[in-house]
């Protein structure tokens, strides 16, 4: 592998690792704020117990998200200095706003996690709301910067030099709104399903457990409300991509040859040389309908794109199908759960539904990873779409295999520890273990 390939791999691996914590960092504070809000209204202890338990998991994940996010802010320069030299002045604005959103989030998370018995209950809840809001805003700003790479606006090129920069116009680029909505909803849905799965697992063991029933209800509600909205958002963003980034769209759909009334292809093996996708399931006129709303419209294929500007169609198409497949499965489960919920007027706890939710737990995070592969690999070979090639942005540094291997090893190590730690957090739910934990907390506070 070349240094360039290692640079891309390191960036991809760092993003893939960080995005899990970023999404949970957006989603968990919402769940905690809902639980604590319910406590303020009903004064039932179970809600505050729940918020505290969720807060413990969030504290661990947030810390890892904070440090892995720091890694990314450095890596922009360590791996892509030419890109930052070119784009820093154009898209620095959302990054600085993100800096302040992150500041606010970190400050109020500190108050939230450590302030249970130091500030009034309502103020504590408000601190939680601030964490949820600023966490969401962090995501909004970072995604805005990424959207600019897909739809670069707010500057002019004169003789290869950037001039007339309008940082506000760059921030309000045409891809920003769609990408932001899609990512924020993704964070809520993924967190909702992941958390619901954990509590569904415990409910399968003991369906009378009020703690897990409450937790399952709140997280499932967020997921059930979020996923249909996400599907609508997905449709909108797909049309936007079809219009703005035809190469990415064609790769997503493994669509090689421009045609009217184009079919949609699900699965299959895209073959660049033969310019066709073998073994895929085809739905006639589906692609034209999806991309334009008109089943007979013509849809641009990869054949209209110069060969050296094609993204890797296999990776992009498979990742896209994985994302849509995961989304559809979650939508089906949400419809099922919502129907049972509406019919019985209480949190559904059918054994088969609980099992389905457990299985669907990772689907939201899988869809997020797949979606990022679609947007990032689909933009290649450009780092700034149509303006700068990724290969021209890379650092002249040699031996990039070393940091790649090092960061990969560190992240794998952290992942193993995290799984182990979170598992123990979950298992410490029986009353005797809880008392032991509270006693330890008391000791550490006094000591």
């Amino acid at each position: 592998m070349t240094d360039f390939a290692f640079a891309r791999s390191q960036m991809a691996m760092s993003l893939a690792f960080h995005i899990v914590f970023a999404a949970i960092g957006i989603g968990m504070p919402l769940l905690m704020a809902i639980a604590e809000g319910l406590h303020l209204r009903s004064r039932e202890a179970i809600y505050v117990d729940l918020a505290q338990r969720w807060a413990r998991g969030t504290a661990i994940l947030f810390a890892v998200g904070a440090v892995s996010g720091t890694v990314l802010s450095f890596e922009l320069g360590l791996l892509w200095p030419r890109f930052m030299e070119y784009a820093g002045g154009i898209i620095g604005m959302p990054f600085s706003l993100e800096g302040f959103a992150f500041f606010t989030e970190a400050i109020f998370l500190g108050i939230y996690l450590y302030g249970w018995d130091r500030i009034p209950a309502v103020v504590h809840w408000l601190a939680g709301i601030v964490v949820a809001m600023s966490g969401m805003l962090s995501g909004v700003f970072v995604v805005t910067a990424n959207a600019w790479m897909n739809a670069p606006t707010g500057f002019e090129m004169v003789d290869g030099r950037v001039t007339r920069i309008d940082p506000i116009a760059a921030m309000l680029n045409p891809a920003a709104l769609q990408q932001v909505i899609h990512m924020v909803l993704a964070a809520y849905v993924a967190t909702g399903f992941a958390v619901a799965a954990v509590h569904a697992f415990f409910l399968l063991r003991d369906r009378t457990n009020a703690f897990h029933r409450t937790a399952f209800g709140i997280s499932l509600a967020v997921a059930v409300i979020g996923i249909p909205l996400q599907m609508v958002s997905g449709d909108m963003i797909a049309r936007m991509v079809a219009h703005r980034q035809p190469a990415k769209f064609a790769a997503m759909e493994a669509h090689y040859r421009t045609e009217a009334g184009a079919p949609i292809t699900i699965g299959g093996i895209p073959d660049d040389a033969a310019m066709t996708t073998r073994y895929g399931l085809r739905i006639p006129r589906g692609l034209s309908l999806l991309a334009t709303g008109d089943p007979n419209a013509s849809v641009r294929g990869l054949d209209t794109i110069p060969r050296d500007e094609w993204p890797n169609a296999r990776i992009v198409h498979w990742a896209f199908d994985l994302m849509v497949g995961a989304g559809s499965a979650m939508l089906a489960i949400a419809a099922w759960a919502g129907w049972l919920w509406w019919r019985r007027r209480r949190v559904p706890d059918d054994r088969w539904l609980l099992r389905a939710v457990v299985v669907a737990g990772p689907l939201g995070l899988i869809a997020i990873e797949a979606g990022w592969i679609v947007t990032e690999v689909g933009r290649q070979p450009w780092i700034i779409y149509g303006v700068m090639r990724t290969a021209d942005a890379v650092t002249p540094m040699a031996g990039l295999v070393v940091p790649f291997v090092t960061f990969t090893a560190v992240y794998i190590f952290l992942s193993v520890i995290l799984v182990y730690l979170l598992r123990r957090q979950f298992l410490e739910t029986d009353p005797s273990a809880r008392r032991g934990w509270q006693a330890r907390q008391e000791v550490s506070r006094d000591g």
Partner: protein
Amino acid sequence: MTVEHRLGAVILAALVIYALSGGADYGGGMWDLLARGPRASRQRAAIEHAIGPIWEANHVWLILVIVVLFTAFPPAFATIMTALHIPMTAILIGIVLRGSAFVFRKYDAQHDAVHRRWSTVFGAASFFTPFVLGLCLGALASGEIRVTDGRLSSGFFAGWTTLFAVACGLFAQGLFAFLAATYLTVDTEGEPELQAGFRTRALVSGVLLAPAAALTFVLARDGAPQIFARLTSWWAPLLVAVTSVCAIGALAALWSRRFRWARAAAVGQVMCILVGWGLAQYPHLVIPDLTLSNTATVPSTLHALQSVLAAGALVLFPAFGYLFYVFKRRS
């Protein structure tokens, strides 16, 4: 004062605050690793108590430095991250391991063996990271990182592999250790045994800072000629005098157990040192080729960034005030 100078001042100010807050958190980690004897676990608990709620917010100052640097001075950011690729990567590894180990320790099993394992990672990374930060700042001052026709021409080892840079690294470690021990004497008020331990640590590290500073200064003559020349110009004696007064004042206050005075003096000392470095470095971001003005991006972005920073400060400082009010007020 032009807008790029104001933004340069913001970078320096953010670095000073990072040193005073995040730097002290590194120092806390060093004392965690060095905790020995019968009170070791209580010392660790005091350190954890002091930095637990605030370290993540403190850490964001470093991100602010990076973000302002790449937004306002993109070519400088590109050059620094290329020339210092190796030490910057090392810093990242240190930051990741340190933050993770700290939170894992808090939420992992409370057995001593497990606790010690995470303490070791946390403490080792707390020693290592400021040292490499010092190497990087020393490299920026060294004059060895060169840019020809807009491209880095001095390779990937220039500046940070010198004796002067090593002295800067050691000095940063010592400064943060001193700062942390001094803060902890205030944080452990009401626990005389712990307080006495941190007082001793603050005194020892504070005294050791003097030869470390002298060594760094002497090595600067060859290692960072511009800095050395500036530190012998007209304003330098004044700054050195104020720094010395703060340093001696801090030690005297520690000696006579006036811990709040010691903390204030130590803060003054660190501020003087970093501001002195900033003045000696001015107007360069990377000596000798990259300055604030020759790397600044277009005015529209600089002005927009300035507005964002001003608006952000309006949110940030009250929020920080509240954070410290909640956790650092006398209970």
